């Protein structure tokens, strides 16, 4: 798989890779869910993971901030490095790792707290603000980044759960960016949203790309085509093809990729 991890036109020095994963395997008890996956994720790039249900794309995404640690029967082997550092090293604190590698889930899951407290939660527990004024700043900045500020600035003390679905998802994104992560992982971030909210989140993804490395798992191939620069196609736990999004959608190399993206049985 190594030969197709990077097409020539974007081959960059190792330093430009945010994540490098080599020979990653994941087992859920006896089930071999990810098979020898190696992939390099660029900084300031949106990378999309696509593939049919059960192909391992979400499982692999969850390896990147050790979310699989929370599942007892799950075992991850292989080498995953963030900025050259082994994230599975016993010295690495998974909580600190997840502050650097934020995550947004399929269903908006705001805390049953006020809008303000939802966003302030992360900065508080990580001690990122020295006082109320600084915390206010972080909350406003994060909500602005998530394109939600204008809609909620007059009701920051109202519960986050009272917002619409699209607003809740943007609140979760604001919460994720509040800790100034370096990478944002998104697992089906728009599947519960209407087309307008989806467009807003996609616009946001494009803006966030200026500062972050983003990895998005999506069932919508059109969404992958719209928002990402790199696309990885997973099938039956294998990384089948990884390349420039434009190439994957116009002239994929592997017949399995072609069958999947053109909607054929394969």
């Amino acid at each position, binding site marked *: 798989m190594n030969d197709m991890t990077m097409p020539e036109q974007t081959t960059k020095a190792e330093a430009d890779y945010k994540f490098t994963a080599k020979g990653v395997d994941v087992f859920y008890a006896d089930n071999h869910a990810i098979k020898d996956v190696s992939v390099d994720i660029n900084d300031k790039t949106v990378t999309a993971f696509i593939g049919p249900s059960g192909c391992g794309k979400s499982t692999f995404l969850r390896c990147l901030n050790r979310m699989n640690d929370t599942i007892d029967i799950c075992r991850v082997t292989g080498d995953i490095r963030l900025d050259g550092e082994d994230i599975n090293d016993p010295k690495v604190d998974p909580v600190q790792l997840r502050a650097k590698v934020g995550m947004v889930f399929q269903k908006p899951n705001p805390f049953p707290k006020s809008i303000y407290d939802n966003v302030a939660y992360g900065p508080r527990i990580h001690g990122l603000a020295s006082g109320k004024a600084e915390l206010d700043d972080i909350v406003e900045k994060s909500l602005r980044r998530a394109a939600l500020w204008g809609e909620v600035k007059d009701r920051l003390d109202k519960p986050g759960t009272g917002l619409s679905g699209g607003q809740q998802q943007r609140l979760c994104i604001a919460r994720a960016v509040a800790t100034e992560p370096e990478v944002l992982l998104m697992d089906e971030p728009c599947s519960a949203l209407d087309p307008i909210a989806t467009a807003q989140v996609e616009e946001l993804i494009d803006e966030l790309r200026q500062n972050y490395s983003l990895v998005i798992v999506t069932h919508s191939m059109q969404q992958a085509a719209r928002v990402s620069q790199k696309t990885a196609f997973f099938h039956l736990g294998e990384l089948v093809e990884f390349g420039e999004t434009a190439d994957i*959608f*116009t*002239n994929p190399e592997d017949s399995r990729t072609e*069958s999947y*993206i*053109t909607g*054929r049985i394969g």
Partner: protein
Amino acid sequence: MDNTEQHIASAFDRDLDAIQGMLMKMGGLVENAILESANSLENRDVELAERVRDGDKDIDALEEQVNEEATRVIALRAPTARDLRTVMTVIKISANLERCGDYAKNLAKRTTVLAEIPPVSGADVSVKRMAREVQLMLNAALDAYIARDADMAERVILQDEDVDKLYNAIFRELLTHMMEDPRNITPCMHLHFIAKNIERMGDHVTSIAEQVIYLVTGKMPDDARPKKDKTPFMDGGS
């Protein structure tokens, strides 16, 4: 992935098949127009020429239909990969075919003029041969499209050199006729436009063959073909 693999949404297959069916129908009409216009010239058959001119409407209408359907498929089905290349090549090939139809129509139009004046010996036969050559090329290019056969398309591209050589020979022949007798100038000018138009048809057929290669391989072929049109450098004394 083999060609017979079906979409999960079978209506998508039906849409693509329908567009390609229209394109092939268009190809058949154009092949016919090329042959019949050349026949009309050879036999000074004004009635046949009239039918060719009239038939161009059907070709134009089909092109419009192909474009409409292709637009609909892009809007409704968001085709990707091979499907996307199919839709893109259908649009381009239909434009090439439409131009070939126009050239055949122009040939037929000049036939009605040439029918009024005495023929220039030999030149008609050469033009007919050239038209036949292009029609065979088009036939092979369309077969290559149906079979998704890039090698066959490659051979069509090479065949265009023969058409260019025929054109060069006709150009020389017509120059000689015009120098021999100024009364030949009017028919020879018409015949030259006809030959030039057939040569242009060959270029459009070459472009169709290139589209077939793109459709099959995902890459446009390199334009390594030597240019055989030497007429810019010819003068009457050569």
